[in-house]
Structure formats: C-alpha cells, structure tokens
C-alpha cells in the first residue's frame, strides 16, 4: 500500500434527474485522490464535495463493495466497470489512473435497462428472465435425497460453478454493442444444464428464459465476445454456445 501523491482528476459524469429527464454529461474536478482508494471511494469524495457546494450528489448503485453483489454498474471511459479485466467498478482502484486524467462515467445503456437516475439503471429485466425459468423446481422439504446420492463429475461441477459465479451486474449487456443478455442468460442455463438435477426441466427452462429475454428487448448476440472480455467473473462464451445448443435441441424436440 503506497503513500504516493494524490491524483487530480476531471470527471465527466452523466446526470439525469429521473426517467423522463433527457440527461447530460457534466464536468467536475476532484483533487488529491489517494491511489489506494477504490473508484467508488473517489465517487464518495465527489459526492461529499457536491453536498458541500449545495449541489445534489451523483446517484449510483453500490452495496457490497467487494465485487460480488453485482450492484455497481458504471461505464467508465467507454468500458463496463472501467479499465482492467475481471474487475467490478467497486474493486477498480485509482492506481489504474494517472494524475490529470479525464474520466468519462456513464450508466449502463440498454433499452432493457432504463436509467432511473444519474448512474442508476433498472435491471429488473434480469429478475424477470430468472422468474421465467432460472430455477430447479424443488420444494423445501428437508427430505430431499441425500446430497451425496447424486455424484456429479468434478469437471461438470466445476464448469457449473464457473457459470454460476455470474453476479448479474449487467456488464455483458452494457458492453455488448447489441445490448444482448446472452451471457447472463446462458450462464444460468448452463449452470443447471451441467448438473443432473437440472436435466428434468432443461428444455422448458431454456425455451422460457430465452423467450423472456427476447420480450425484455435485449439485442441479438453477434458473437463479438465483448461480454466475456468485460465480465468481472470471466463467464465464458462457451456458455452461450451451450445455450444455443440447448435451445436448438429443445426447440426442435419439445412437443410444447
């Protein structure tokens, strides 16, 4: 942890009062930001400054600040969660920036993620996709079979886990030039498709989730791979291919 000199920065931040407001970029200056600070701590300092000046602070989503809850969602210098790989906005640290830098900060942009205020967007479309089939239908009983009664090949278990690490932040949608949600949806489809427990409902799951995804107005996947590159959890494009397969075979063979 260094004690290097603080950074002076110019921030261009998207300000939008509410859903009906058109919104605009506004410019702010912050100074003496510790390179050990996180990006959101820098935003806290900006907000303290704005409050002191009698202005309204910038609204942004954040909660755990340790890269796992998926709340934070800033499009920084043209990239979801800013520079660097496998990082969320909250874990982005100011040592990634240089003194004197100008930083552009925008909300996620997608028709399916309308802006609520400033940098806060509404991602409930993800919840609706989940409600359409992102589950295994098992009631809580306490007498489901013993957990070790279903062995799962380690590789499948590991791949299922890798898909399940999606934090639902929406960086995939934000970075995709088509605002497609394929990486998010495919991660959930894959998690269950790779486990024996998920097989029973596999066909309905993929058909219903994709249907809901389309209804929400996400774009089509054109395989640019931007989602995978910007995903803070490194969710693989393999999941999209798997979902395509699952969808095709379900679409062809399902009798519904």
């Amino acid at each position, binding site marked *: *942890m260094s004690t290097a000199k603080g950074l002076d920065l110019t921030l261009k931040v998207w300000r939008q009062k509410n859903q009906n407001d058109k919104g605009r970029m506004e410019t702010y200056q912050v100074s003496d930001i510790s390179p050990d600070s996180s990006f959101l701590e820098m935003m806290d300092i900006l907000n303290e400054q704005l409050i002191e000046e009698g202005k309204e602070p910038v609204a942004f989503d954040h909660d755990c600040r340790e890269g796992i809850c998926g709340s934070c969602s800033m499009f920084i210098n043209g990239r979801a969660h800013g520079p660097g790989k496998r990082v969320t906005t909250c874990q982005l640290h100011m040592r990634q920036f240089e003194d004197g830098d100008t930083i552009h900060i925008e909300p996620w942009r997608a028709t399916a993620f309308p802006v609520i205020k400033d940098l806060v967007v509404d991602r409930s479309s993800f919840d609706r996709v989940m409600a359409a089939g992102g589950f295994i239908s098992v009631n809580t009983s306490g007498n489901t079979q013993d957990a070790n009664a279903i062995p799962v090949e380690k590789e499948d278990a590991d791949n299922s886990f890798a898909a399940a690490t999606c934090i639902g932040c929406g960086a995939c949608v934000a970075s995709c030039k088509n605002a497609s949600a394929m990486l998010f949806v495919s991660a959930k489809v894959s998690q269950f498709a790779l486990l024996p427990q998920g097989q029973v409902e596999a066909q309905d799951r993929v058909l219903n989730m994709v249907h809901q995804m389309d209804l929400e107005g996400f774009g089509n996947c054109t395989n640019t791979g931007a989602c995978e590159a910007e995903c803070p959890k490194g969710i693989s494009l393999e999941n999209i291919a798997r979902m395509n397969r699952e969808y095709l075979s379900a679409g062809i063979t399902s009798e519904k």
Partner: protein
Amino acid sequence: MSVLDSRIPEGPLADKWTNHKNNIRLVNPANKRLIDVIVVGTGLAGGSASATLAELGYNVKAFCYQDSPRRAHSIAAQGGINAAKNYQGDGDSVYRLFYDTVKGGDYRSREANVYRLAEVSTNIIDQCVAQGVPFARDYGGLLDNRSFGGVQVSRTFYAKGQTGQQLLLGCYSAMSRQIGKGKIQMYNRHEFMDLVIVDGKARGIIARNLVTGEVERHSAHAVVIASGGYGNVFFLSTNAMGSNASAAWKVHKRGAFFANPCFTQIHPTCIPQHGDQQSKLTLMSESLRNDGRIWVPKKKEDAEAVRAGKLKPTNIKEEDRDYYLERRYPSFGNLVPRDVASRAAKERCDAGYGVGTNETGEAVFLDFASAIERYGREEANVRGIHNASDSEIKKLGEETVEKKYGNLFQMYELITGDNPYKTPMKIYPAVHYTMGGVWVDYNLMTTIPGCYAIGEANFSDHGANRLGASALMQGLADGYFVLPYTIGDYLADDIRTGAIPTDTPEFDEAEKAVKDRINTLINNKGSKSVDHFHKRLGKVMWNKVGMARNEQGLKEAIEEIRQIREEFWKEVNVPGSADELNQELEKALRVADFLELGELFARDALERNESCGGHFREEYQTEEGEAVRDDENYTFVSAWEYKGEPSEAVMRREALNYENIELKTRSYK
C-alpha cells in the same frame, strides 16, 4: 422472568425439535391461501423463508432495499457452510456440531436452539444440492469439505471462495420460481420504515419506495424481519454499504426486546484500512487460515523497518518471525476461533509489532510461503518429479494454492496492488458479524406477537462468538427449516381473520411518524453530511466499544454517542427531496437508527462485567491476556426493552440453562 418466555419445548435435548414439530399447530393448505406474510430482507434467511412460505401456500410480500433480491450481503460470505454430515468420517456428528457451536459461542447461547441448528444442518446441504447449488466436489463426484476455525473436523461445505453467493443464488432461484407463480410479490428498492401493530399484533409495515420516494402501507398477518446485522454501526465493517439495523431497531422501538447488542464479531482476516478515504473493509476468508500462517516480526526494529517500507517481509529470517498464534495456542494454532485470533493480532500491534504501512500501523502477516512449498512438494511427488528444483516446487505449489484460493488472492491483489503469491498478505481484524440482535423465542418470534426475526437479525444461536461457516447455516436453517414450521403455530389463529385493512388509525399513525421523520431530515438543511456523523460514530465505536472495552471507555462512548446524535439532528444536511431516489436520505434514516443503537450497544457492554467471546473487557482477563468469563453472574441473555431513549432502556434477563454441556473455560491451547 415472565416477559421472556423462551418457549423451549420439554423433553431430552435431541428430541425437543421433533416433539415440538409434532405438537405444533398447522394451517391447512386451503387456509394458507388466506394468509399474508411480509418478509423484510432477501438474504439467506429472508430469501429461504420467502421461498418456503410461498411454496407452502402463504401469500408472501418480500422487501429488499437493493435492486434485486439476489444482492443481499449473504452473497459476500466466502468460506463455507457447516453441516454435520460426517462425509469425511472424521468423527463429526450432530452432537459435536452442537457442542462446538456452544463452546465457540463461549457458553452464551441457548442449548435447545443450537441443537436444532445442528440437527437441521444436514437438511440444508441436501436441499441446496437439490436446488442446483454447485458445491465443490472431489474426483469421485462427491461433495468436498474443508475445516474451519475453532473445530477439529472437516464439516464445511464450500463453493470455492463464493459459498455465500452460491447459496444466496439458490434462495434467489427458489424465490424467482415463486415470483413467477405470483406467490411472492417482490418489492425491490423498497425500504422498511416502521412496523404497524394492531391490537398488540404485528399486522403490517410502512415501506418507502426508494425510486419514487412514496411512503406505502403494506399489511399482513405476520411480519418476518430478516434484515441482517448491525455491524455498520462501526461505519467501517465488512458489511455492505447499505446493510443497516433500521428494521431490527424499529421493531425494537415498537416493543421487541433487543438481545446482547454488545456481542459483535471482529473477524481476524480482513484487508487493513488504507486511510481516511476508506469506505468499507474487505474480508479475506477464514479458510485462508487453513494454509496461511500468521506472524509478526520478533524484533521491534524489524517491525518498524517494515512499516517504514525499508524491509521486505520475505527478507526477515525464519528465526526472527513470531508465529504468535502457533506459539500461544499450539493445539489449534492458526485455526483458533475468530475472537481469539483477532485479539491476539490486536495485542501484537498494540505492543508495537504491527506491520501496516497505513497511518495506524495495524496489520499482521498472513503468509502462504510454507503452504506453497508443502503443496509444491506434494504435487511434485504426485507427478513423479523426484528432484524438483526450488523454483519448480514453488510453481507447482502456487498452482495448487491458486486452485484453492485463486479468487481470494486475486481480490487481495486488486485491492492492495500486492501479489500475495510473492509476498505475505497483510491482514487486520475488522467488524464482521453481530451475534446480538432481536430477542426471539424458540419459535423465532420476538416479544411482539406475529413479529418474527430470523438470520443475523436475531440473537439466538451464536452466543458471544460465532464460528466460521455458521452464519450461512443459521440463516438457511431459520428460513428453510425452522420458521416455516413455527410460524404456523401462530398463524393458525388467523385463518378467519381475512385481509388486514390498511386504512386504520394504526397505519395512519405509523405512516405519519415516518413522513414526519423524513421531512425533518430533508428540511433540516444543516451543515454536515450524513457520512460525517456516521464516521464519527464509527470511530467512537471502534476505539471504545471495539475489540477491547473498559468501563471508563464505555462510559465515555455512551456520552459521546449521545452528543453525536444530538448534533446529527441539529446539523445534518440531506440534499434533494423526499419524493425521488435520494441516497443521502436513505443513509440519513439508517444512521439515525445506528446513533441510537450504538448507545444501547455500549450500555450492554458496560453492564456485562466479564469477558466472553467477542466481548472483551480489559478488567476481566488473565495475566496472559486470556478472557475471564463470569458464569456465576452472567450466564444470561441480556434483553433490552425500549423505553423512549436508549439510556432509559431496561435490561431483562433470560437465564441460560446448560443441561447437556458442562460450562468450561474455553481453551484452544
């Protein structure tokens, strides 16, 4: 004692829960459709309860302040979840998990509750696997386990360093299924504002829509508080920024007793604070202590040189290192319980051996060099490389460590800029979990009929200290397997009640009080931000009500917190208006409650003249600095009754009776 009826069932310990379930009243499926239940919070406890209650047929209204139920802070739990499955055949059993939990909690928890927790722990794993939670597995395809602090068996199930996330997503999936069916009405971005009591029973809540600012009335036949702990009273903690005590505190003010507020867990392995701009602390999973060795330099001058950045830890010779946990506690070593490990780190840093390069100098090393070497040798043997060079061994070892802890190491590097494969991590204790909470009986009902508290929000299972990987267990146990049974006992009376109207004087009164409070804050137009007060409160809490407490400090703290609270109401500045998304207003409402809770917290610590678990009073320690418990006078739960001001709260005692476990001095030596 009559006010605190814990309603622990009769009979032998091992049969209590089964007997209770057999004798409890049920609500038939047709009638469940006529009953509404409000659940506040969608973490492991709230999420699992919402899903299960909805599956049973109740109409559930679930509330969370986040934009989705998937984001609750249970998601950040890294290490794992305990369950007495004994899959490793290492002598584990329900009794042993029960025993370890009671002992780990320093004999300040209820036997019956803890036994039930241990009993249903195995169901949790079965349930989660059935839901598709991808736990770690071995090459045979069966579930893998690791060991955690304070125990001598491997009973912790895990999903890399993201166990909490996977379990929460399991709950979220189960909830999503019910949301899709319309059995759960989900209120995202809604914050609990107050509890509404009608005829002495909890009958609804006032909530604020965080997007529009609208203050809404919601009625139900029962209200479940699953809003988590109050660690953010310290400002800096490993809790999420939004984690707050308001729901728990508001039900307390409406008549629910608040138990053991001073029992707070300070987690030993967190990333040290970098400076004043810090907004929160990040935990490094306790599982790291399985392989990491904790040390500080033996010589003060070395510690000084490290702090000044003149000496690299890797250049300190083995004989000049003090592996103080291994030295003090040879039988548990680096795996002593959290409270013990935290205090030991503080002791070393206070004595001048800290290695932090931040302003406080507070940090100790968590070193993986020997684990890397050990795994490297193992792996070399497995691969049949017999004369592997040091660098080969190191490389192989690093690969193994990466497989086990890769995401944690990566997180550490992101935050600190240091590579923990090459140089030891620096860690320091931080506030992590609150064992105290809303007092509940065996049915998890608070002292307000119809108002329940589950998960971290209640106080029931962890006593004075929680063992690692037990929070997830408790949250899910309460939500999946306890509350859904016990709530029926109460709701059986409500099958003919019909929908609860919201146009009653009780709702009017509660709504008005909420609106007044909001307007007061908005119109205050003071000179200082909410964070200003929160940080000041946090400093007082950390310095005087933190890892070590004493009478004088606590008395000062009580006075200082009161002053900060008074100043807050005079000087706080909340910009913007009440009828829009206003994050400063949200914070202000939460901090206002912390400012009251903090005082009660300090009072509770002052009243408890002993050291136990997470509560360490400097007056009560051995010459070696070990905690001294006073079982004769303090084997009770302190449950506080609200009387208008924290200073006027009255403490009630629930005596703890140990019928199955002999009270012993905890020793991990």
